[in-house]
């Protein structure tokens, strides 16, 4: 009977072939390490955020007179409302952590290289959508930091040429962040996750066209690819278990460590908090914004600091496979960049002083300097490595890739389908 049902569906909808093509027969490099787990985890957190968010929206009131109280209503009166809310607020941080690791893996192993540029750029678009969603969601509790964070960030659009002031009013729906802003941010905070889901589908279509990259940095021979299911479903679910343990420690034991104390005070437009800090995942970019003395320059630098990753396929000119593993210079740059990110994050967190501003400026210069130096450094590194003689492993990788390319060419010539 089940067989007949499947047959019935297959005549009308490509169910079996879809499952075969995208899951049970989808070829995945067998050498993927656990760093390749994080895309799946990001997908999981997205589902978690949508699921908890929908239930929170059932109890939340998007009205400046009611929203702060409605959060307390969720925390105190709604059955397990505190769990929903803490899962959602922790989930936002988890989402960024997972995405940052996912991006760091791409950078470390050079997964952005041809033919995966579009995959990387759709990911870049997803990062922007995620940032917008998180920013708008942060206004909803209507605490002090919500209000002042939204005020500071919407104010940045004043940097728009010619009609900056109008853009700010258009975004806020009012001359200052108020009820109109809260209502529209709520509406958009509910909409954007569905745009993200759409963009994730595009990201996955691109992924399934070019297939996963792998630590070796070359396209593996057919025999080194294994079906996604059951091998990587099993591996991803084990990774998910580990992730959930860390996530649950935050949700159940230290959920308030991810919420600024000042956000437990209702928004008060008459009283500016001592210092306004964004959530941790925006801190490095916020530090870059603050380290440029001119506002327009700061906004441009901040925008560029997020968007500059899109240029990676062209900035990295080395052809050595294996990611940073066989590339000592690139590996060094990678770790310096990671440390610089942390430094900028810290600078973004502390109240600005003369020293911290100066350190922030050096950090910003280093941040952009890395991207400027990369085209030359990567080429020079390649030349140096070639001259010194590549390690036998790399030679073997390059040779096997050549062989594979030849095989594919022959197959095409014969007209046989893969």
């Amino acid at each position, binding site marked *: 009977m089940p067989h007949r049902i499947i047959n019935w569906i297959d005549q009308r909808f490509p169910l079996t072939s879809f499952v075969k093509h995208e899951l049970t027969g989808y070829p995945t490099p*067998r050498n993927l390490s656990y*760093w390749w787990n994080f895309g799946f985890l990001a997908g999981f957190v997205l589902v978690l955020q949508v699921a908890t968010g929908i239930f929170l929206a059932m109890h939340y009131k998007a009205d400046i007179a009611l929203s702060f109280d409605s959060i*307390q209503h969720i*925390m*105190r009166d709604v059955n397990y409302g*505190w*769990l929903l809310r*803490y899962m959602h607020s922790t989930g936002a*941080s988890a989402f960024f*952590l997972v995405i*940052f*690791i996912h991006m*760091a*893996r791409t950078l*470390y192993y050079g997964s952005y290289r041809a033919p995966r540029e579009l995959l990387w750029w759709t990911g870049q678009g997803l990062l922007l959508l995620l940032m917008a969603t998180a920013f708008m969601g942060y206004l909803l509790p209507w605490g002090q930091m919500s209000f002042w964070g939204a005020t500071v960030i919407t104010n940045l659009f004043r940097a728009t040429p010619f009609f900056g002031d109008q853009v700010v009013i258009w975004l806020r729906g009012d001359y200052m962040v108020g009820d109109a802003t809260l209502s529209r941010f709520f509406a958009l905070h509910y909409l954007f996750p569905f745009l993200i889901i759409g963009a994730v589908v595009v990201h996955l279509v691109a992924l399934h066209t070019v297939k996963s990259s792998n630590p070796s940095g070359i396209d593996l021979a057919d025999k080194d690819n*294994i079906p996604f299911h*059951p*091998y990587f479903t*099993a*591996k991803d*679910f*084990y990774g*998910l*278990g*580990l992730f*959930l*343990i860390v996530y*649950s*420690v935050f*949700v*159940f*034991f230290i*959920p*308030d*460590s*991810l*919420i600024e*104390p*000042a956000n*437990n*005070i209702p928004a008060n437009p008459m009283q500016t908090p*001592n210092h306004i800090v964004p959530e*941790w995942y925006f801190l490095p970019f916020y530090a870059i914004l603050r380290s440029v003395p001119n506002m327009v320059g700061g906004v441009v630098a901040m925008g560029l600091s997020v968007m500059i990753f899109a240029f990676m396929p062209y900035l990295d000119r080395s052809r050595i496979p294996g990611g940073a593993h066989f590339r000592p210079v690139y590996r060094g740059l990678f*770790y310096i960049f*990671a*440390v610089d990110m*942390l430094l900028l*994050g*810290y600078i973004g*967190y*502390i*109240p600005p002083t003369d020293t911290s501003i100066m350190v922030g400026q050096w950090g910003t210069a280093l941040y952009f300097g890395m991207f400027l130096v990369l085209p030359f450094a990567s080429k020079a590194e390649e030349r140096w490595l070639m001259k010194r003689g590549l390690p036998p492993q790399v030679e073997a990788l390059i040779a096997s890739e050549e062989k594979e390319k030849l095989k594919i060419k022959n197959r095409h010539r014969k007209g046989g389908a893969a």
Partner: protein
Amino acid sequence: MSKLITLLLLSCISIPSLASEAKLENIQVMTDVQTVERGAEALMTDCHSCHSLKYIRYRDLVNYGVDKGKVDAWRGDLSMDAAVMAQMAEADSELAFGKAPPDLSLIAKAREGGASYIYSYLVGYFISSDGMPGNHYFPETKMPDVLGISGASNEKERAEIQSKARDIVAFMVWAADPNGPERIRLGYYVIAYLIVLTTLLYFVKNQVWSRLK
């Protein structure tokens, strides 16, 4: 790469605040029923005339296990479902102190340093050499030294006031997050369950991968 994840994890841990000048006296509070009840009693006597706790209803206290007779005495003829509002009208206290006293329901979460800050503040009053009252942690405070720590003449009296302040803070910690104890209790079960589940998933993964040559 393993270095990177340690660094990323470190960056999530909130960096201690640099805001207040005086060093906080770090305390750990217990939110067991007895402590919370003692704290509620002290708060009703010393704080409730000016401060409200609008997110706490008298019924919440009874539900947590505070003696019903005491709660009845505190609420007078107010309903069990009434919020714990200040006895003094907000306008009057603004007139008297120049500033409306803050609501205390969330205060333990709303200050950098949390319980330790509030405790340090409550016992941080002093009389300066020229006879002016002051507070080490919040110099511009409008609140008088209600617990009387600055007037305490001996160690015994000081210790009594400190233990009272501790109880009040414990009550505030509970009031800021009444589901906290349940959250932590549930948390142990969730983590234990996840560890078992993850171990099983690990074996499943090994089993599946062992089919590969």
